[in-house]
């Protein structure tokens, strides 16, 4: 993971890492996302797109509510139900990010066929 590659002309809404994972030359095939998850050396933000604000707000609100509910009575069903809501919304947030990422991948697919264009240029540092 020595070389850090960054796409400089990527629109700001895409995390560079989403546009990036390309097969490296030299016969070694990498598993890009897996490598990224394991703390690979990308200098840019590697967590992918941000959660849409609507869902993001719901997640943080639900956490606050769960903490309040459970502070009062932490053995009740309400406490479990409140944390279950947190889990449900966190999963929904994650799915929403995946969806945005898929849209980002559309650019990558475009670049497979149009590697020479400005928006698809990659640079080695």
């Amino acid at each position, binding site marked *: 993971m020595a070389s850090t590659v960054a796409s400089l002309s990527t629109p700001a809404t895409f995390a560079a890492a989403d546009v990036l994972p390309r097969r490296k030359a030299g016969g070694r095939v990498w*598993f890009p996302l897996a490598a990224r998850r394991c703390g690979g050396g990308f200098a840019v933000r590697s*967590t992918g797109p941000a959660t849409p604000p609507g869902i993001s707000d719901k997640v*943080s609100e639900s*956490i606050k509510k769960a*903490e309040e509910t459970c502070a009062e009575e932490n053995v009740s069903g309400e406490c*479990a*139900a409140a944390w*279950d809501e947190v*889990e449900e919304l*966190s999963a929904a947030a994650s799915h929403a990010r995946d969806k945005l990422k898929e849209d980002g991948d559309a650019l990558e697919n475009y670049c497979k066929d149009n590697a020479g264009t400005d928006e698809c240029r990659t640079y080695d540092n």
Partner: protein
Amino acid sequence: MAICSAHTTTSLHSPCTTTVSNSGFRQKHVIFFTSSNRRSGGGRRHGGTRTFHVSCSVDKPVVIGLAADSGCGKSTFMRRLTSVFGGAAEPPKGGNPDSNTLISDTTTVICLDDYHSLDRTGRKEKGVTALDPRANNFDLMYEQVKAIKEGQAVEKPIYNHVTGLLDPPELITPPKIFVIEGLHPMFDERVRDLLDFSIYLDISDEVKFAWKIQRDMAERGHSLESIKASIEARKPDFDAYIDPQKQYADAVIEVLPTQLIPDDNEGKVLRVKLIMKEGVKHFNPVYLFDEGSSITWVPCGRKLTCSYPGIKFAYGPDTYFGNEVSVLEMDGQFDRLDELIYVESHLSNLSTKFYGEVTQQMLKHADFPGSNNGTGLFQTMIGLKIRDLYEQIVAERAGVPAEAAKV
């Protein structure tokens, strides 16, 4: 020519009979199943009555159940499964953008959260989690899965995970392969009996925690404490209602921390077990080297160089909840393509159509989580097994009525 009205037969093995209405009188016909590779032939005369050629495989889906907790990789598994059949799974076109359904050429995947009887507010009021059977309508789940299995379309509710409300229903038509995924596919005995094959994803507490940190830490409002609190608060219901379903599964994928790195709790390197029930119709477990023996295998050595912490396989017979099973285990991860090919070439009974198909599938989705470890490998293998099971069932359906016709 193809008339295949609503069937009432539930057995996969009985000839497909149906009642055809024809200008005011009703008459019973034997319908001949056809599979995709059927030799072409026109409508034949048979004993003076007309016979119909109908593709009943389309009308009577093979039903698969996939159980796992929220955030434990069901969607990744589904993407791998639909990919084995070719074609990508997409949400229904022009429908509710918050639909949980995925449709490909062959497969429809529905999420069982759609059968919540209590919406988010209702669960809060009653103090029950979504894991609790009281929050789910098993009668409707059973009726609709049964109807789909019999070849009838259904209007299935949609549970909206963003709003927490039940949205207006969507139409689900019978596909070739119908997958029900969610928290409770094997909870209700009636639903369980409709499944042609069932899978349980069993994620150990350590790994679940590590995965949820990965998923949620960047999310505003979340912290290590909130992630831990959520897992702990849901655990009693999880243990009571979700976990016991694994005893019914035909295949269990167990995900554990590695044993290759002492005291590792980062959850990055995984030990994954594939537990395959013996004696399941149309399902022959995968084996390593010698079927039924107990084997430990470290492929890394003179022929294959692996990077730290290496790869270790184990295989052997065992019992699981009183059932005979075969267990295949992989600890560690693949770093390079040649490692994966080397491993694939030493596994048998993979149900691949050509040499290297497992590797090809893994590479095709190298960006999916788990593509470099046992979760991706075993999910791909189960995908191939489901394809094989589907083809066997279709062939069997095509064969039985032909036999009956000879008599």
